[in-house]
């Protein structure tokens, strides 16, 4: 059954399958690939990549293979690399959450330069509560899936940090499936890597699910950081909130944000809002932002989106400088302030501090003191 390509009526283009060969060859002209520089994917997109390495992983988990029964519970791949990673990964990680876990559960992934496929399953049992952190660093080429099974009335926060070296390529499909009255918060932080393409998706298995998707990205010269979100409202009375912010500075710095929200005919009482803001810190930087809201029922509680991309506001800089604050410090304040709206919603204090430090580092690394 799983090999049969399936598609939805509303989105015929969203083909899903666990068989990589079920997907037509990627040309780069498809809507979902048109922003991605395929030549930088090192063959992950067409099956020509030689993938025989692993990421080293630190943390508390159970090792699983592709035939583990939970694999495929929340994620059905929507593109070829994702399907191939799910079929071919050698070692995946299963984190099982039971009860309320006070301290964040951290998995540290470190790339040594090899190419690898990976897979992570977080099985958050009903009524459990936890913060799970996936911390990526090092180099290499990596494609993988992350499945978040959020049980009835469970409360799961997933933090995915992409703090890769400059040469890393990372494709990841991060799919959450929310049970009845489940709460899910996704925090995606992408600062590192040559090319990062993350696809967080949310589906609801029962009523009353509440998903909050937060994202921060900072692209320097030559970095391509792409986040493609899809929230699929198919059951009544669920809620979703998306807030993504990205800054880009330097030659060929490029951020992409796609925010697809589908409210199906049966999803009455849906409440959704998505917001994307992009800040261009230099003339050569580029940001693409495509919000897309499809509504198939009139019986909703609320639905909206907002997207804006702006250049650095010289008047803000002038105002701060006119109070004696030096130009580089003033710039830091403005950029930190820009991200603050997202940072303050994260709710993991250690991460918030780390982010402020990372933002400062990004600004100083690429001549933010201009």
């Amino acid at each position: 059954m799983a090999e049969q390509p399936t598609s939805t009526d509303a989105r015929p283009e969203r083909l899903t399958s666990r068989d990589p060969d079920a997907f037509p060859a990627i040309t780069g002209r498809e809507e979902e690939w048109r922003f991605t520089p395929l030549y930088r994917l090192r063959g992950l997109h067409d099956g020509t990549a030689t993938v025989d390495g692993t990421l080293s992983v630190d943390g508390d988990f159970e090792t699983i293979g592709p035939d583990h029964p939970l694999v495929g519970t929340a994620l059905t791949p929507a593109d070829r690399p994702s399907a191939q990673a799910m079929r071919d990964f050698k070692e995946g990680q299963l984190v099982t959450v039971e009860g309320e876990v006070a301290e964040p559960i951290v998995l540290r992934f470190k790339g040594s330069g090899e190419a690898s496929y990976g897979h992570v399953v977080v099985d958050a049992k009903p009524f459990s509560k936890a913060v799970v952190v996936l911390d990526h660093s090092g180099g290499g080429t990596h494609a993988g899936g992350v499945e978040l099974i959020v049980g009835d009335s469970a409360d799961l926060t997933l933090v995915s940090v992409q703090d890769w070296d400059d040469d890393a390529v990372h494709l990841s499909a991060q799919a959450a499936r929310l049970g009845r009255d489940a709460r899910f918060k996704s925090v995606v932080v992408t600062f590192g890597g040559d090319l990062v393409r993350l696809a967080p998706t949310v589906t609801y298995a029962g009523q009353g699910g509440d998903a909050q998707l937060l994202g921060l990205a900072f692209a320097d010269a030559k970095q391509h950081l792409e986040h493609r979100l899809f929230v699929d409202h198919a059951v009544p009375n669920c809620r979703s909130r998306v807030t993504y912010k990205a800054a880009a500075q330097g030659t060929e710095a490029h951020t992409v944000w796609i925010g697809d929200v589908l409210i199906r005919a049966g999803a009455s009482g849906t409440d959704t809002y998505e917001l994307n803001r992009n800040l261009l810190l230099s003339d050569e930087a580029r940001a693409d932002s495509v919000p897309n809201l499809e509504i198939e029922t009139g019986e909703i509680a609320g639905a909206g989106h907002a997207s804006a991309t702006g250049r650095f506001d010289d008047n803000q800089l002038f105002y701060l400088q006119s109070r004696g604050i030096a130009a580089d410090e003033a710039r830091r304040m403005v950029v930190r302030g820009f991200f603050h709206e997202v940072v303050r919603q994260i709710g993991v204090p250690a991460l918030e501090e780390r982010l402020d430090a990372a933002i400062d580092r990004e600004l100083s690394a690429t001549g933010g003191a201009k």
Partner: protein
Amino acid sequence: MTTLEIRDLHVSVDEKPILSGVDLTIRSGETHAIMGPNGSGKSTLAYSLAGHPKYTVTSGTVTLDGEDVLSMSVDERARAGMFLAMQYPVEVPGVTVSNFLRTAATAVRGEAPTLRHWVKEQKAAMASLDMDPAFATRNVNEGFSGGEKKRHEILQLELLKPRIAILDETDSGLDVDALRVVSEGVNRVRSTGETGTLLITHYTRILRYIEPDFVHVFVGGKIVEEGGKELADELEANGYARFTSGAAV
């Protein structure tokens, strides 16, 4: 004793000349009012002195105790003791008032005030301007009413204690009560005798609260008449007609 000297200042915006030879000297303890009709270049003078990049100085000099102000960056001017209370203060999303004020005080004073003293100092300054303490947790100028923006500007004036304060249309958009509170703040700074004040205004009403030592009438990008506060009274009675009739404004 501080002296700001402006000599034959010419300024253009997008190659269009706006200021055409401004001469003005301001010393500590003095209050100068610059009055002029809309479009006369008053705000251009204010922003040029603060160093806004939109304004190009084409000739002339500005010195602060002999130091060349025009060669300083915007933040260097502030640290040298210049302050501009803006007519349209800028929103800075995500930056709280308290963070902003402490960062500015640290920059201008050259060292960070100890947290304990700072909290007290900021609280006292806000109280004297009838500002709710919760104001400190809001983002700079974001969602502020006109009156809140002006109070916030004068709060900075009181905390940063500049040697030269330029107040650009501080009275605009204020009701009578707010005008009184803001004026009292300015007067507290003036009464120290350590700040020279340049008050830029279209209307005479703020001069009822802040009494100037000198009044300058500004028309067509320069000062066309100077006098004491009786000149302001004449403007109140007769308007700018006597000065604008022959001038290209």
